[in-house]
């Protein structure tokens, strides 16, 4: 009997297509949550995921979804690892992911604050966030927290539409 190791590239391709449970227009690869897919010497496909937020309730769903997709694709030995370090940053959302967010009416994040402690700044910060519908930059934050941890609520002053914005973190 001839045994061949699973094809890591194909396994990666399968894992990359898994949609995010809360932002299903994005794949886990678009979101930067899928950190790595490799095949070990004994033929196990190991997919590494990182949580977006500590309290992200979708983490268990993501693990289950990736494992199920890989098994459906014929990989029998699948292991999901969680990578905590380095922590997820919105900078890892891919250019394709940002385009998809905007198409679905969610403003993608700007550059995340650089590492280290962020001092408390009370002066109004000028976040240039464009309205995903009309493109105007005349938008304001209505709430820093929205339906999921990773988003804020904003409103466009030009077209009057409310919209969500993936926060920089």
């Amino acid at each position, binding site marked *: 009997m001839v045994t061949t190791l699973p094809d890591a590239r194909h396994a990666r391709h399968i894992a990359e297509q898994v*949609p995010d*449970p*809360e*932002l*299903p*227009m994005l794949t886990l690869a678009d979101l930067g949550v899928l950190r790595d897919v490799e095949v070990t010497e004994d033929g196990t496909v190991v997919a590494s*995921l990182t*949580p977006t*937020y*500590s*309290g*992200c*309730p979708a*983490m*268990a*769903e993501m*693990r289950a*979804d990736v494992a199920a997709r890989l098994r459906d694709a014929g990989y029998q030995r699948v*292991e*999901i*690892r*969680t*990578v*905590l*370090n*380095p*922590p*997820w*940053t919105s900078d890892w959302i891919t250019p394709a992911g940002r385009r998809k967010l905007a198409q*679905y009416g969610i403003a993608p994040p700007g550059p995340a*604050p650089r590492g*280290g*402690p*962020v001092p*408390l700044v*009370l002066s109004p910060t000028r976040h240039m966030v464009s309205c995903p519908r009309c493109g105007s930059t005349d938008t304001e934050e*209505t*709430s*820093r*927290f*929205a*339906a999921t*941890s990773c988003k804020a*609520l904003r409103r466009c002053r030009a077209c009057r539409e409310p919209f969500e914005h993936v*926060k920089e*973190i």
Partner: protein
Amino acid sequence: MSDDHVYLTLAEGHEDDTRWAYGTGFEDPLHGVDTTVPEGIDTGRLAADCVALADDALVSAQRLAEWITRAPELEEEVALANIGLDLLGQARLLYSRAGQADGTGRDEDAYAYFRDAGDFRNVRLAELPNGDFAFSIVRLLVLSSCRVAHFHRLTSHTDPVLAAIAAKGVKELTYHRQYAAEWAVRLGDGTEESHRRMRRAMDQVAPYLGELFTTYDVRDEVVADLRQVTEAAGLPMPVYRPLPGAGRDGEHTEHLAPLLAELQGVARAHPEATW
């Protein structure tokens, strides 16, 4: 799975899943993480530190959740719930780490649901009743300012798992502190009534600052944040005197036991159940 509606997509992906409400029996949040404790670490101390930080977060999360259906505006309710969710996530990771470090293998449910008030190690400020919105905001400001400073130190901890939990937490806590600080300024510099309430809230929080500073070595950072906020809000700096006792030694106010009774009631009534 091409549906763009979150609910439908979830329903489609989990149509055989009868579990739509979640309370216990979660998958270990550190599942799939390399949880080896490096040699040379004082594991008892590591476990105790993780439990204390988790207790602060769990008790705070429970208080924040009490605001749901009671907050002044829907946006604030969503914000407070989100902040609570972040803290709950931090608590889950920290409890799991504690159980690995002390060798008991206890899971997060064992820590959260099956310890009594005297076993909890949270600072007392976290367990005080919510009071009005002003009190909750001042407390959130102080606790998140303290926690962001402490977590920043922990990012260089010799335990890589605790360091990683802290590195993630710092980002979240920065948002929490910002939220509380902006509300504190808005209310302190707002109407006569909101200003009065904020002064009262500062006075109510002040006695617990001493305990916070003996528990965590973060006095300079918290005082700097408070100074910035009080100056912008036109509020006096809180004056604090030491208050006997410490939550870190299991000495709590009379408010912790009723909070835990609500938090733990179902899990204790049905100890083998998962839901």
